[in-house]
C-alpha cells in the first residue's frame, strides 16, 4: 500500500513534469499567487520615498481586486531598509531566501541596489525596475538579471546632445560635472551621442567634487572659455550656485541642467527664480501639479486610483504617480509571462516589452525593452524655466 502510494506519487510528479516542464522552476509562484519582494526606505532620512512603496502596494491591491493576473493574486512584500545598504542586503536576503519571492521589484537607491547587484545576479533572481537613475542597471551582458526603469542620467545626456546638435550646432559647448558615477554618466551620454565629434563641440570640460564648498571658480573658467552652451551635471546645491554665479558675472549661455536639479524648492528658489529664467532641463513624467493635466484622461485614471486606494495621499506628490507607472509596467510583464512564471521567463518578458503607453508619462514617452536594451524609458521632453514655472517645449526627443 505504502509502496503503491509512493509509486503513484512519483508517477504523478513525472507526469506533471512532462506536461509542464517549467513548473519546477517557478519559485515564489503557485496556482493562486505570485510573490514579489521590495525594499524601500519607510523610515530614516529618505523616508519621503516611502510613498513609492505605498503606491506599488496599492496598485497591486487594485490588480488583485480586479481578479489578479491569469487567476493569480500578487502577494507584495515590501520591507523598510531605512536607505541603509547593509539593511537592504539583509532584507533582500530575507525576501529571496526565506519568503522565496519570485522577483525583486522597484527597490530604491543607487547604493542600496549596488549592494545587492552581484547577489541578485549570482542567485539569478530578477531585480526589476529599480528606482535609481544610474546607467549601470541597463547592462544585459554583465548583469542580465537587473533592469532600471526611469531614463538614466546617460540617456538624459544623450537627449541634451541631440537638442544641441539640432539647435546650436557649431556653437562652443562646455560641460561641468560632478566627479563621480553620477556626473560621469552625463559625460558618457554626451560622448555616445556626439561620437568622435564630441571634442569638436565640447571644448571645455570641468569637474567639481561633491565635497567642494562652491563651484564659483569653475563657472568663471567656463565663461572664460567663450562657451555659448553649457551642460551642468550637478546636484541641486551646485546647480543653484552655477545659475547664480553665471548670472552674477553676466554670462548667459544656453544652459542644460541635469533634471535631478529641476526642483523649484531645492534649486530654483535658492538661485533666485529671476536668475534662472531660461534654464533648460527635461521631464518624462506628467507633473501632477501642472494645470495642463488637470483634465487629462491618463492622470484622471491615476487620480481615480488614488481616490480609491490611497485616499489620504498627497495628489501633488510625484512619487505616487511614479509608483503607479512602474507597477503598471510590472503587471504588463507578468501578463506577458502567461502561465510560465519561471524567473528565466520573467526576465525574458521584461526584456521584451513592446511599446507600453503608461498614462502618467508624457505623451510620446513610453516603455519599451529588447534583449539588448535594458533601458525601459528613453524619451524625454525639454522644459524651460520661465520665472514662475517650467514650460515644456519642442517635441519629445528619443535618445536611441
Amino acid at each position, binding site marked *: 500500500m505504502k509502496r503503491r502510494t509512493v509509486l503513484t506519487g512519483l508517477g504523478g510528479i513525472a507526469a506533471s513534469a512532462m506536461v509542464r516542464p517549467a513548473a519546477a522552476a517557478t519559485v515564489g509562484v503557485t496556482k493562486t499567487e505570485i510573490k514579489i519582494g521590495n525594499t524601500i526606505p519607510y523610515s530614516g532620512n529618505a523616508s519621503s520615498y516611502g510613498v513609492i512603496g505605498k503606491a506599488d502596494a496599492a496598485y497591486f491591491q487594485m490588480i488583485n481586486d480586479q481578479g489578479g493576473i491569469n487567476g493569480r493574486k500578487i502577494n507584495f512584500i515590501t520591507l523598510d531598509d531605512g536607505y541603509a545598504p547593509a539593511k537592504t542586503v539583509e532584507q533582500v536576503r530575507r525576501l529571496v531566501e526565506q519568503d522565496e519571492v519570485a522577483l525583486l521589484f522597484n527597490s530604491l537607491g543607487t547604493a542600496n541596489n549596488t*549592494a545587492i547587484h552581484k547577489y541578485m545576479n549570482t542567485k539569478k533572481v530578477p531585480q526589476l525596475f529599480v528606482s535609481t537613475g544610474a546607467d549601470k542597471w541597463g547592462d544585459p551582458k554583465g548583469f542580465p538579471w537587473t533592469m532600471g526603469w526611469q531614463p538614466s542620467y546617460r540617456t538624459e545626456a544623450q537627449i541634451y546632445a541631440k537638442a544641441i546638435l539640432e539647435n546650436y550646432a557649431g556653437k562652443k559647448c562646455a560641460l561641468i560635472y560632478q566627479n563621480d558615477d553620477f556626473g560621469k554618466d552625463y559625460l558618457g551620454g554626451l560622448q555616445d551621442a556626439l561620437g568622435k565629434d564630441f571634442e569638436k563641440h565640447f571644448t571645455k570640460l570641468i569637474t567639481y567634487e561633491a565635497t567642494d564648498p562652491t563651484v564659483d571658480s569653475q563657472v568663471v573658467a567656463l565663461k572664460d572659455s567663450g562657451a555659448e552652451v553649457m551642460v551642468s551635471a550637478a546636484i541641486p546645491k551646485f546647480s543653484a550656485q552655477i545659475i547664480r554665479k553665471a548670472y552674477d558675472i553676466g554670462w548667459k549661455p544656453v544652459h542644460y541642467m541635469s533634471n535631478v536639479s529641476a526642483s523649484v524648492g531645492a534649486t530654483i528658489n535658492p538661485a533666485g527664480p529671476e536668475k534662472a529664467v531660461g534654464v533648460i532641463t527635461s521631464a518624462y513624467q506628467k507633473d501632477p501639479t501642472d494645470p495642463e493635466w488637470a483634465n487629462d484622461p491618463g492622470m484622471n485614471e491615476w487620480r481615480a486610483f488614488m481616490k480609491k486606494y490611497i485616499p489620504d495621499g498627497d495628489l501633488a506628490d510625484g512619487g505616487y504617480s511614479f509608483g503607479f507607472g512602474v507597477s503598471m509596467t510590472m503587471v504588463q510583464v507578468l501578463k506577458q509571462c502567461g502561465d510560465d512564471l519561471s524567473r528565466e521567463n520573467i526576465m525574458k518578458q521584461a526584456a521584451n516589452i513592446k511599446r507600453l503607453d503608461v498614462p502618467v508619462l508624457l505623451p510620446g514617452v513610453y516603455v519599451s525593452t529588447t534583449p539588448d536594451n535594458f533601458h525601459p524609458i528613453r524619451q524625454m521632453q525639454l522644459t524651460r524655466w520661465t520665472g514662475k514655472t517650467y514650460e515644456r517645449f519642442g517635441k519629445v526627443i528619443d535618445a536611441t
Partner: protein
Amino acid sequence: MHAHITRFGPLLFIVLAAVLPLAFASGYQLFQLTLVVAYALSVLGLNLVTGYNGQVSLGHGAFYAVGAYVTAIMMDRWDVPYWATLPVSAVVCAVFGFLLGMPALRLGGVYLALTTFALAVAVPQLLKYKLIDGWTGGVQGITIIKPDAPYDLPLTSDQWVYLFSLAVGVLMFALASNLVHGRIGRAMVAIRDQPIAAEAMGIDIARFKTLTFATSAMFTGIGGSLAAIAVQFVSPDSFTVALSVTFFVGMVIGGAASIWGAVFGALFIEFVPNIADHLSKAAPGAIYGVILIAFMFLAPGGIASLLRRWFARLAVK
C-alpha cells in the same frame, strides 16, 4: 545556583550560539546573526568608553566605518585574505581612537558628545573625498567577495562567516571582560564616578582616558570589519549619523557598563526595527520609538541589569 550561572552561563551560551544556528538557521538568519555579532562588538566598544569610563560618544559609527573600509580596501585593492585584515583594522582604529581621545581630554559631558557627533556627521563626506577616492571608490563604494569555508569544510559561506565572526566576537568579549574586571577596569570606573578621588589614588587620568578611547575604537572597528565581510559592500551612505545613534541606543537598552549588555543591545538594534516595520508601514519610526520608551520604563538600567535582578531573585529562592 548563582555561582553556577556566572561560571557556566557564558560557556553554555557560546556553545549554543555556535551549534544552534548551524543546525537550524537559514542563510538569511545566519547573516542576521553575523550582523548581531558585529553590532555587539561595536556596542561593546562604545560601552567601554561611555558606560565604564563615562566619556559620552555619539560618533562611534565613524570607527565602525573606518574598520569596514580598512577591510574592504585591503580585500579589494590588495587581495588580502579577510582574516588578515582584522589585526590591521584593529591597529588603524586604535590609532584613530587614540588621536581622538586627546582632544576628548579637554572636553567633558555634552561637549564631548557633540564633538564626537560632529565626527559621525563628517565621515560619510570624508569618505567621498577625492584624495582618497582611488581607495574608497568614492560614492559608489566597494563590493567585496564573500569568503568560503577553508579546508573543504562542509559549511556554506554564510555558516563559515558566522562561525568566524562568532569566534572573533568571543575572543574580543573575553578580552573586554578581563579588562573591566581587573585593575584597569576599576580605574576606568573610578575615573567615571570620582575623577578627583581617582587622581588622588594615583590613577593617571589622561593616560587612561586616551587609552580607553583607543581600545573602544578598536572594538568598534573590528565590528565594522566583520560587518563589511558579511554585507560584502561598503559605501559612504552605509555609515550615516543614524548608525552612531543606533549604537548609542544599543548600549543604553542593553545596559551601560555591562559586558552582556552589548549582546542584548545588539539583538535589539538588529531585530526591533524589523518588528516595527512589520507592525506598521506608515510609521515604523513611531513604533520603534514606542518600543524604545517601553524598554526604558520596564528595564531602566538596561536589559542586562533587569536579567541580573531576576537571577539574583532566583538565587535567593
